[in-house]
Structure formats: structure tokens, C-alpha cells
């Protein structure tokens, strides 16, 4: 490079038009220093903000804030008391509980009690009512659970990569690992819980219980197992794939069965599913399979809630 031979003016002109490179030692330019955040200034800024916050939101300094909070509290209490009074007044005018002449004791409940077993084949008339007479409501209610699970997934589901890298940190960060007492108790309890939940699901049409309660028990059993042995062990039989497969199969089966029931019933077509003898395990038509699929769905959702809230994935 022959830059030494050129005059200052030429060099300035070159620099001005950008012909010279800045860092080829031709120009006396200093390389820019790496940006280093000034920690002191940062701290000062945060302190300043905290002071400001204190000043604005602290009731000792801010009279308006104090007034607002007081008014808010008083109004809240007054509103609640008013609401309670209104509701109590309303209740005092309503028919007394358990009276024989109440409007609620009409032909509807009479038919449920008198013809329930003959119509639905279910000895447990509550199950017969929710899965046969008012099947549409129950289908909607199951989907409330499904959509709640979806919303929790939107909020808490983490990407697989993040999940893997933070798995150790999230899983049992605050809890002792491999607690012997818990594991021993779980070894005894989990099989019992599972068997009892299956019993409750299968006997939903015969005895108190059904899909929702049995599923909740099964979910609780799985949560207990996970607490004791960790996610790695649970994932061997219940990972994300299994969760999706079971959930979708159960709900689709439910949907198909219930659609069959609606359309056959509404069009006055013959129902090909026999009701069986009331009291036998294989009876009550569609109620038994529906109880099973509802139970599976509820168990999946229960466990999914736990897993998502604990570590954001399965």
C-alpha cells in the first residue's frame, strides 16, 4: 500500500467518500470497544425505578392511591353483602327444600324414578339419566374437560428441546428424589387404586360411580405413581403419544356412539344395542362402553393437567 505518499487532503477525501477501509492501518482510527453494560448504571436505574414505584404505589406518599384502595375495598364488601342479601331474599321466597308439592317434583323426576330401569337398563338411575336421557349435556360436559386440557396446553406446553434441557431442573427440583417411604406406599397403593377405579368405571350402571369418578381415581393413581417414581418411569407406558392416542380414540368412540344414539332415537329407528337384564354387568346398552371411554378421557386429562403444571410436558 502506498498511502504514505498521498497528501492529507487526498486521504481525507478518500475517507469521506468511503474509498479507504477504516481498519487497514491507513487511517488513524481506533477500533470500537466491545460494548460492556455498565452494571453500576444499570443498578442505579433499577434503584431509581423502584423508588419511583414506591413513591407512586405506596399509600403513605400517594393520597389518591390510598383513597382508591379504601374505596375499592369498601365497595367490594358492600357489593358482596348486597348480593348475599338479594340471594337470601330470593331463596326465602323459593319453595322449601324437600316439600312434596314443590314444582321440581313433577312428571319429569317421576318418570326417571319409575321407568328409569326399564328405559335405560341401568340400575344406577343417575348414570341412566346423564348418559341416556340427557346424553347431549354429558357429551358437552366431557368436551368442556377436553377443551380445558387444550387451553392448559396452550399456556404451559413447552417445546421438546427446552423440555429435555430443563428436565432435570424442573423434575424434582424442590422435592427429594426417590423417597423410600413414598415409593413403598405407592407400590402398595397404586395397583389398588387402579383396580378400584376400573371397578368403578365398569360398574357405573350398577352402583354409585361411573366414568367421571372412576377416571378421576385412575388419574390420581397415575399422579401418585409419577410422584413416587418420576416422569422417566411413567413415560415408559404413558408418554405424549399414548396420551394423544388414548384421548382421541376415547373421545371419537364416544362421539360415534352418541351420534348413533341420537340419530337412531330421533328418527324412530330401531336401536340394535340390547339393553340386557338390569343388574348384569353386560347390560344397559351403550352406557357401559360410554362410561369406559369417559373414564379414560378423564384419567388422561387429570394426569395431563398434573404433568403440564409440573414440568410443561410429559
Amino acid at each position, binding site marked *: 500500500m502506498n498511502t504514505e505518499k498521498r497528501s492529507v487532503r487526498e486521504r481525507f477525501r478518500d475517507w469521506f467518500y468511503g474509498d479507504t477501509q477504516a481498519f487497514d492501518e491507513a487511517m488513524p482510527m481506533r477500533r470500537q470497544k466491545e460494548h460492556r453494560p455498565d452494571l453500576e448504571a444499570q443498578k442505579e436505574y433499577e434503584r431509581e425505578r423502584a423508588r419511583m414505584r414506591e413513591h407512586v404505589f405506596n399509600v403513605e406518599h400517594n393520597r389518591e392511591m390510598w383513597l382508591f384502595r379504601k374505596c375499592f375495598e369498601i365497595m367490594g364488601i358492600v357489593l358482596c353483602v348486597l348480593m348475599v342479601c338479594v340471594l337470601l331474599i330470593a331463596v326465602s321466597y323459593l319453595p322449601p327444600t324437600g316439600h312434596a308439592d314443590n314444582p321440581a317434583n313433577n312428571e*319429569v323426576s317421576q*318418570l326417571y324414578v319409575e321407568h328409569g330401569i326399564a328405559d335405560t337398563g341401568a340400575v344406577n338411575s343417575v348414570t341412566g339419566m346423564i348418559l*341416556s*336421557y340427557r346424553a347431549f349435556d354429558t357429551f358437552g360436559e366431557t*368436551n368442556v374437560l377436553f377443551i380445558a386440557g387444550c387451553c392448559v396446553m*396452550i399456556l404451559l406446553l413447552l417445546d421438546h428441546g427446552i423440555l429435555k434441557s430443563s428436565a432435570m431442573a424442573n423434575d424434582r427440583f424442590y422435592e427429594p428424589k426417590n423417597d423410600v417411604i413414598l415409593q413403598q406406599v405407592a407400590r402398595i397403593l397404586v395397583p389398588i387404586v387402579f383396580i378400584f377405579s376400573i371397578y368403578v368405571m365398569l360398574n357405573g350402571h350398577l352402583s354409585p360411580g361411573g366414568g367421571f369418578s372412576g377416571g378421576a381415581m385412575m388419574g390420581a393413581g397415575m399422579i401418585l405413581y409419577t410422584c413416587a417414581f418420576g416422569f422417566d418411569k411413567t413415560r415408559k407406558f404413558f408418554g405424549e403419544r399414548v396420551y394423544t392416542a388414548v384421548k382421541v380414540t376415547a373421545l371419537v368412540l364416544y*362421539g360415534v356412539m352418541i351420534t348413533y344414539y341420537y340419530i337412531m*332415537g330421533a328418527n324412530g329407528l330401531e336401536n340394535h344395542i340390547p339393553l340386557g337384564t338390569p343388574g348384569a354387568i353386560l347390560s344397559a346398552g351403550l352406557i357401559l362402553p360410554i362410561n369406559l371411554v369417559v373414564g379414560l378421557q378423564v384419567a388422561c386429562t387429570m394426569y395431563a393437567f398434573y404433568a403440564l403444571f409440573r414440568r410443561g410436558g410429559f
Partner: protein
Amino acid sequence: MDLICNFPCISIVMCILGGIVSSALKGRAAKYLNAVILLAATIMSASVFGYTIMTGESFTYVMGRFPAPWGNELRAGVLEGGMALFFCVIMTLSLFGGQEKLHTEIEPQKLNLYYILCDLLLSSLLSLVYTNDLFTAYVFVEINTISACGLIMISQTGRTIEAATRYMIMSLLGSGMLLLGICMLYDMTGHLLMENIHQTLRASVTAGKFHVPLMITIGMLCVGIAIKSALFPFHTWLPDAYGYSTVSSAAILSSLVSKGYIFLLIKLIYRVIGFDVIYASRVTDILFVFGVAGMIIGSLSAIKENDIFRMIAFSSVAQIGYIYMGFGLGTQAAMVASVFHILSHAVTKALLFLSAAGLADASDGSRRFLDLTGSGYRNRIAGIAFAAGALSMVGIPLFSGFISKLLFAEASVRNSGKMLPAMIALAISTILNAIYFMKTVIRIYTPVKTDQGTILLKKHKLFAASMACFIALNIFLGLCSDWIVDLIETGLEMFV
């Protein structure tokens, strides 16, 4: 029974099943499934609509083997069929219009969840429209609330989470009130089916029984639905929820979710409690006062706003106020005007949200008015669509907004007591509407020199097509209003 009578049930179950299957699919497949479902639901609702117009009477559909009052029932008349068709069409157009934006704002592995929410939301809207049973209505109100919450928070920024939390709290308060009201109705009548409640209630009103609890029940039901559909004093959740969520969510929430609840209120007024009982309870006066206040205060807040999405959201408060003012006038004509305004507002508000998103895209994603200057030239289709929507909101003839204002004015003239406040509120609100919408239109068509590139029509065909459909639908409502008003009147008569 004709095959078409099965369609309401099939369309509801199909939407739910579609949502369930989508949870096992990837985002793209879920999108196509959702499109198929929307198309099928639109066709089915259209056939139900056509069928009820042809037969001239409504039909009930027993869900299962047991007829009412023991089992669940659906019921479809002209108004139900028309509403279902309308909801399906608006949902389809909103989803198509906001699709590109959606794919940039949502994490790809959560995309299928968005379509699940949409499918279930549609199923709940259809159920709210068709159901003949109050408890079924409550179950689907729950699904509606949860999926609306999901729609708000799917684009996860701090503000959407905050908005969703606020929506959740307010909306659950509303659901709770609604549930208490339904419980008390059941205690007084022993039924959950709308017609049976109506008959039993009529008997007890003539006998003079249950006056106090009935009044409290009416209050509960009205306040519950007013909270959920953002009537004026309960509107505080609305601007953030509509303003910060992703654009197709905002369009769906503003034009469908709140309208579903309002349609439920119309059903409660006509088919459950009875129009005359509601009118005698003077609750209509309270709705009238809050509706009028909402019309004016919503518009004033919109004028103060510096963010285009929040401005449109506040305008929704004013428009909901119009609808409740129609309920408050307490005549058949005003009710027709309110139903027409539901349609008109749904079409226009979805159009405005989608086109505002287009304008913001042409201005580096900024939503502040200063940055939007001249964006109508940079994104022509969004500019035209926004101008059309604004003209409709202000009430220029040819657009649907004009017809609804005309119907409200006619209805208020026939009501001697409330004519003056209604007319004054209409006039003030129209002027305020004009101030903030025309300000925005002038702003987006003020020429300015920037280096921001123009957005070409060719690259956004889906968006352009959906905008064109919305404008066409808007003008269709404006031009064929006689036919539609006739249909609404027939539908309301079928209700009773």
C-alpha cells in the same frame, strides 16, 4: 322426518368430532380439516335455513330416544337457521382472512390447538343457536367461554395473557350468574326445557306466585349475559381482549362470541320468560339506560384511543350498546332492529379488524395512528376494506349500518316514552362514530413519503378474497334489507 331435520345435530357433533381429531393432527392438516368442517357446517345450516323458509314452520329434534321434557331437544326455525348460517359464514371468512397473520404469530406446534378451539367454538355457537334446553345452553356457554379464552391467549405476549385472565374472571362471573338464574328457574318450575318453563312460569305469574324470585332471576340472567357480551359498565375486559389477540381471534370474538350470548338472551326473553313478563318487570328500562350510556361512552373512549385495534374494540362497546338499546325499547320493531344490528355489526366489525391488521402490516406492524399515515396506498385492498367498514359503521346508505340505524330510529319513533332519549343518543353516537372513523380513514389516505414497500394483492389472495366477500356481504345486507327484515320478523314470530 326429513333428512334435513338431522342437520343441526349432525353439524354440532361434526364440529366437536373435528376438534377432537384435530388434536392428533399437525397444524396444516388441522387447518384443512377445519376448512372442510366450516364448509360442511355452512352447507348444512344453509339447508336448514332453506328448509324452514320452505315449510314455514319450526321443527324440534329429539336428541336420543326420549322426547322433551325428559330428554334433550334441539329446535330450528327461520331465525335459528339463518343465525347458524351467518355464524358459519363469518367464521369461515374471518379465519381465511387472518390465516397468514395467524401462522406468523403462533408457535407452529400449537397451531392445531388453535383450530381445535375454532371447531369447538363453532360447535358451541351452533348449540347456543339451536338448543331448546336451558341446561344444554349453559354447558355450551362453558365451552364457548373456555375456547374464547384460548383464542385470546394463543399468541402469547404478556398483554394477551393479562387480557385472557381479565376475560376469564369477568366471564366466569357472568357464567355464575347465568347458572344461578337457571337454578332458580328450575326451582320455580321444575323444568329445564324452554317451552315447559314458559308454560309453568305463565301459570305461576297469573296465580301471582314467585314474584320476587322471578324478578331476581330475570336480573341475574340479564346481568350474567350482559357481562359476557360486554354491555357498558361491564366492558372493561373488552379492549385488551380484542385489541391484542391475533387478528382472526379478534374478528371471531367481536363478531361471533358476544353475539352468541345475545342470541341466547333473545331466546330467554321470548321463549323462556316471555316478552310481556320481561317488559312488565321494567328490566328493559335498565337495559335501555345502560345501552344508551354504552353507545356514548364507548364512542368517547374510542375517540381518545391512539391504537387502531383498541379504537375498533371500543367501537364494539358502542355497537353492543345499540343492541341493548333495542331490547330496552321493548317493542317488536326494536327487537327486529336489534337482530338486524347483530348481523350488521358482525359483518362490519370482522371486516374492520381484518383490514386494520392489513394496514398495520403495511406500516411495519405499528398500530399507532401516526405510523398508519398513508397506509391505504401501501395496502390498497385493506384500505378499501377499512373505508367500506368505516362507512358502514357511520351509517352511510348502501351499507348495512345505515339500515340498522334506520330501523332503530323507526322503532324509537313508535315508542312514545323513550323516543327522545333514543333519538338523541342515536344522533350523538352517529356523530361520534363519524368523528373517529372518518379521522382514521382520512389518516390512512393522507399521502406521505416513506420507504415502506407496498403490499401487493397477488401475494395475499386469500386475504383479498375474504375482504371482498365481507364487503359484498355488507352491501348485500344493505341492499336486500327488506327481505332480511321480513325473515327476521317471521323468525321472531316462530319463536313464540
